[in-house]
């Protein structure tokens, strides 16, 4: 899309945002391992924040790398 105009792909923007979200959510999940919240959510034992954070990191990292500006030109 718009390669001829040198436009950055939307997937790059998405990748960067997901990467950031991955860092924040994984970081929060790891922090809660050492300092469990006073009011835990249902199924807190699954540590879904950690798994979701890793998923976001992988997705975000993959998209950022693949669609990095200038990488495919």
């Amino acid at each position, binding site marked *: 899309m718009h390669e001829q105009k040198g436009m950055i792909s939307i997937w790059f923007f998405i990748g960067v945002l997901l990467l950031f979200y991955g860092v924040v959510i994984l970081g929060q*999940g790891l922090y809660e391992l050492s300092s469990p919240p006073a009011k835990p959510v249902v199924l807190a034992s699954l540590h879904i924040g950690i798994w979701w954070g890793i998923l976001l990191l992988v997705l975000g990292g993959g998209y950022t790398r693949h669609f990095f500006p200038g990488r495919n030109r």
Partner: protein
Amino acid sequence: MNSNQLLSLAPADILVIGAYFVTVLGIGFYLKRFTTTGDDFFLAGRDMTAWIAGLSFVSANLGALELMGWAGAAYQYGILATHWYWIGAIPAMLFLGIVMMPFYYISKTHSVPGYLKLRFGEAARATSAISFGLMTILMSGVNMYAMALIMQVILGWDLSFSIWVSSLTVGVYVVLGGLLSAIFNEVLQFVLIWLGALVITIVGLIETGGWSGMMARVHQNTPGADYTHLWSTLGHFSDNPMGIHWTGIVLGLGFVISFGYWTTDFLVVQRVLSAKDLRSARMAPVIGAAFKMAVPLIVIVPGLLALAVLPFKLVGADEAAVNHMHSYNEVLPLMLARYCGPGLLGLGITALVAGFMSGMAGNVTAFSTVWTYDIYRALIRKNASDEHYVSMGRWSTIVGLLISIGTAYLVMRSAGIMDYVQALFSFFIAPLFGTVVLGMLWKRATPAGGFWGLLLGTIASIGMWAWVKLDPSALRYVAMSQDAKAMAEDMYRALWSWIVCVLVTVIVSYATKPLPESQLVGLVYGCTPIPSDGDLALYRKPQFWAVLVAMGLVILNIVVW
């Protein structure tokens, strides 16, 4: 902040929500340099791939009210709510891609009213453009107010804060980058909506022991009613929680309302018109249909999970306000609160905010295009420069948002207005579908036939609505049963108004002189050479993927029959 708020945000949540706002604004500023011509601003340069156009096509419809409203409907009516995502969307989306898109695309129109001008003349265009422009911007205001109200309940945010922050953000990125910016952000919003809401489905199904465990708990919590079957309870109005008959679902929803919305509402069609070529324009609705078919996973399943696991009952909004209970619309936030800790909660709230903004951007971009091309250029200033129309597009975006905000404040003062605005919107969609589909598929349809069909179909719809308002017993004629509920009434009213539109168009067309075929080239089936994609590999043909999506639809319906 309100002490009765449902959720409270931690620093990680605020970081997640803040990053979203920074990104959407950044995208708007970045794209301004690529938005110089009318085609760039109003049609994203007609340069979008099928994937981008298809995801944007679905995302523009996936507003936050849609997400929360249908999750609430799933709690209230059970799996029947899925009809709005499957039979109420997929056939129409495939029909748009395979049958109608060639005519929209080849005619090079900027808008649906623009197509009516080419096919039926200025009167049909003016009727359609003025009604669409007005209703779109009023609906945007109603949605703005409804969303702000929900944010107040969930997060304790002040109504004006929600309205102004979201409007200004959407205003900035749409004014800067036009449809291009709206489409980029809609794709981003689509990804965030999925990643934010899918957590509920996954953790909820783990809690209930999978699909069968969830269904068993739903049965247990709803004794004497069937919330888990899609078709088997539709034999009579009183056999299902929605009070609807299968003819209403198939003919009213599946045919008229769905086809009217997905094939002629410019808010969604505009996204597909931005595709870079005809094949992409035909593939985009097919891709959109595949994703639409999966949306119940993040909307309907959370509603059913709430029915299965919440230890208290949800009620209608009015009863909730009086008795300090939770309303149906709070299903998604309640489930977010149940499963999502800091960070993930922020992602879930971002999904709702993203849904709200994608819906609002859809409304304002469609409004500015129809205003600029089909009202301002057609009726006020015909021969200005391209730069002038781009500038008008930017100003009309700002004015449209201000009217929406004004409508939101008007509704805040008198909530009854909301029902009237929503009803008004429904009056135009079904007859418009009749006019457009006859225009595309029947070359004998004449300009007079198209105009009078559209006008009288709309008047018939308004007349039936007023009849039932004045005399509620008229429901047995309009909706064919006194047991019919509001949704059923809407569907039958749409069906009758479509029939009136088609009959009037046919009768008037036969009574008036047809246009010569040379004037119908590029507009009507039988007069338009459709570029063949016979040389393409099977897997690159839109028809192949449309058949696969249709087969998926049939299988899913059988599984939860």
